């Protein structure tokens, strides 16, 4: 395995550099604690200095693998809430000649000048970029480019952690009290602040009469408690978390309804029920009366028939029956 430290894009040592490289190879430093033992690279003395300065920071290593057939650029999202040493590695697997590949690193659109290494093993080309993120200026997108016939790219996006609030609006009523919470999973902000906004202007929340900010027992959550809700308390609320590496915020919608809002449908339903029940019972009474009436008429007929059966002979039945029938109608 040839370890060939490359300081810029084009590789291959020029004759003038050969003694310098021999010196470097001879004075190969031992791998420092922070660097990755699996890395196919050795570290530069420049990096050694930096590592000593920030040795109390953790090391984050991230990897992207590219093949020559990759049509889409590969992206990786990395969340970071505190300063750290970063080691980014891109590897390219290709069947073509590795010498013809041009390797560059960019932060955003800006070309990065130094501090990256290139190596090759078999038909895999490795490149590594190491740096330290201390504040928000170093956050952003870092990309490695392999230039052959077409350009292959891998991008690392560094972001502050996202906050978790509520996806849906919080619905509450006038006179109630409510609590809005914001949480950060596995991260610990330095500071929390709350804002309320009507339209586009954000106004800090804190010292108003009915609102009080309570930071939870663990630093990763915060709550805004509003005690006596008024209609104007409704609207958008923002919780903002401050990290060493930037800020993150989350939106929570609070809707304050007056008690009349659900009361109207409720009264409408009650009215509908009362109406239906009354209609049904009245209909029933009406049909019952009608039936009773027709029942009474039938009974009347029956009684007449019985009387005629008992008192008279069969001969008088027919005219009698007809008389009572016509009378009933």
């Amino acid at each position, binding site marked *: 395995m040839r370890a060939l430290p490359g300081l810029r894009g084009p590789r291959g040592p020029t004759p003038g550099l050969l003694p310098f490289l021999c010196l470097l190879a001879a004075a190969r430093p031992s791998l420092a604690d922070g660097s990755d033992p699996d890395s196919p690279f050795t570290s530069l003395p420049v990096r050694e200095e930096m590592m000593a300065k920030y040795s109390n920071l953790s090391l984050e290593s991230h990897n992207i693998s590219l093949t020559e057939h990759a049509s889409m650029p590969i992206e990786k999202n990395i969340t970071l809430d505190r300063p750290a040493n970063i080691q980014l590695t891109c590897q390219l697997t290709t069947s073509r000649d590795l010498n013809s590949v041009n390797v560059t690193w960019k932060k955003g659109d800006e070309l990065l000048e130094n501090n990256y290494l290139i190596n090759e093993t078999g038909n895999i080309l490795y490149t590594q970029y190491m740096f330290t993120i201390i504040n928000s200026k170093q956050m952003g997108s870092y990309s490695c480019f392999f230039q052959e016939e077409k350009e292959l790219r891998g991008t690392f996006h560094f972001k502050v952690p996202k906050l978790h609030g509520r996806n849906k609006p919080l619905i509450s*009523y006038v006179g*109630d009290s409510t609590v809005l919470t914001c949480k950060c999973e596995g991260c610990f902000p330095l500071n929390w602040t709350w804002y309320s906004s009507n339209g586009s202007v954000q106004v800090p929340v804190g010292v108003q009469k009915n609102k009080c900010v309570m930071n939870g027992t663990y630093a990763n959550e915060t709550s805004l408690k509003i005690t006596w809700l008024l209609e104007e308390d409704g609207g958008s609320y923002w919780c903002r978390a401050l990290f060493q590496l930037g800020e993150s915020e989350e939106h929570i919608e609070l809707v304050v309804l007056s008690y009349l809002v659900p009361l109207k449908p409720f009264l409408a339903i009650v009215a509908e029920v009362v109406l239906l029940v009354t209609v049904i019972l009245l209909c029933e009474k009406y049909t019952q009366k009608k039936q009773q009436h027709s029942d009474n008429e039938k009974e009347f007929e029956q009684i007449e028939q019985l009387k005629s059966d008992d008192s008279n002979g069969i001969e008088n039945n027919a005219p009698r029956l007809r008389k009572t029938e016509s009378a009933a109608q």
Partner: protein
Amino acid sequence: MAPMPSAPPPCLPPDGGWGWVVVGAAFISIGFSYAFPKAVTVFYKEIQEIFHATHSEIAWISSIMLAVMYAGGPISSVLVNKYGSRPVVMVGGLLCCLGMVLASFSTSVVQLYLTMGFTVGIGLAFNLQPALTIIGKYFYKKRPMANGLAMAGSPVFLSTLAPFNQYLFNTYGWKGSFLILGGILLNACVGGSLMRPLVPKQTTSKSKNKIGIKGEDSGLKKIHKKKSTWERVNKYLDFSLFKHRGFLIYLSGNVIMFVGFFAPIIFLAPYAKDQGIDEYSAAFLLSVMAFVDMFARPSVGLIANSKYIRPRIQYFFSFAVMFNGVCHLLCPLAQTYPSLVVYAVFFGLGFGSVSSVLFETLMDLVGAPRFSSAVGLVTVVECGPVLLGPPLAGKLVDITGEYKYMYMACGAIVVVASVWLLIGNAINYRLLEKEKKKKQARKKIMNTLESKESEPLSKSKHLEDVSKAETIPSERETNI
């Protein structure tokens, strides 16, 4: 062997006409009773956060609601026996509404237990029993069909209430939702108002007998003044049912069955998620089950009504229970999503067929006049296994760490119950045949002598055939 079902009630059921409207009203009442405790769980997550309660404290709300609904059965039966179905259902609707309106003002979990759990539970109890009872009064020939249609209310209401509750919650928050749900529950009163009590109709050809019967009534009243306390208690709630062979078989079989009946539904979604299926597909399994259930109930009611099945409906019930049990025993074989969907379909079919004839078989065994008391006693005894089943199953899952043992245990319990019911009912049918033959022989002898037109209360439990029922207005008329 052609075993006869128990005879129709003395007041001849119309078997149609207004009866179908009553089926619709029962559909509403049964739908609210079974679906509401499950549909209200949509709010639990939010309430848990607001009241700072634990998971199990909130789950108690549904448990209390179900427990009170089942345990309130006897109270409901007593009231139905005295006042009839209509007033009880209307009071039930009012209680449900009151409970939910009060719940919207509660500030602690205990208040929710009292309002949502207890009050709404009683209200639902006052809905369930009368609805089942009145079907028995309005139908005889088409009763299985009517039962199947009415019981279909449960899955229909569950499928509509659950998403509706979600919508209400997103628009009005939990307080407003409870208020509006109170209004929705008040619609049970509309169903109640449709449950017209049946007036015993005397056909015109019997008008001569009418005058004669009135005289008999006054004579009998003198005899009944000398009733013992036992008989007076029995008038309100028929405890003599505990001597009824068919009732005891039904009760014991059902108690065994309910231990393992509901746990598979409750754990279907968690089991699916455990197999690696995502949340929404797991919830979809329940929807599939409810959908199949919705159509299975009336269809099975129709099948149970057929000429071939009706006389042997107890066997049909036993086979339906066995089908359920076998389904659960085979469930552990389903580990991919398509196989779980197939399981859900068969489960829905089994669940629907058992639910459809669940109360029809009870009516068949004890007869319509005693059904009101029977269903009250059955629900209060079933309270135990219904509430204990799911937690026990949950414990089994915790101990063994796998869901399949729970499914196998539930399947085994349900199969045992089905076998018990099958054997018990076979014996019962045979004994009923023997008793019927004895009676017919006795009647031939009695017919030569002059017989009184009415029977005393403490006589035989089995009434006579349809053709003879018209001539005997029984004193044990249980409604109006």
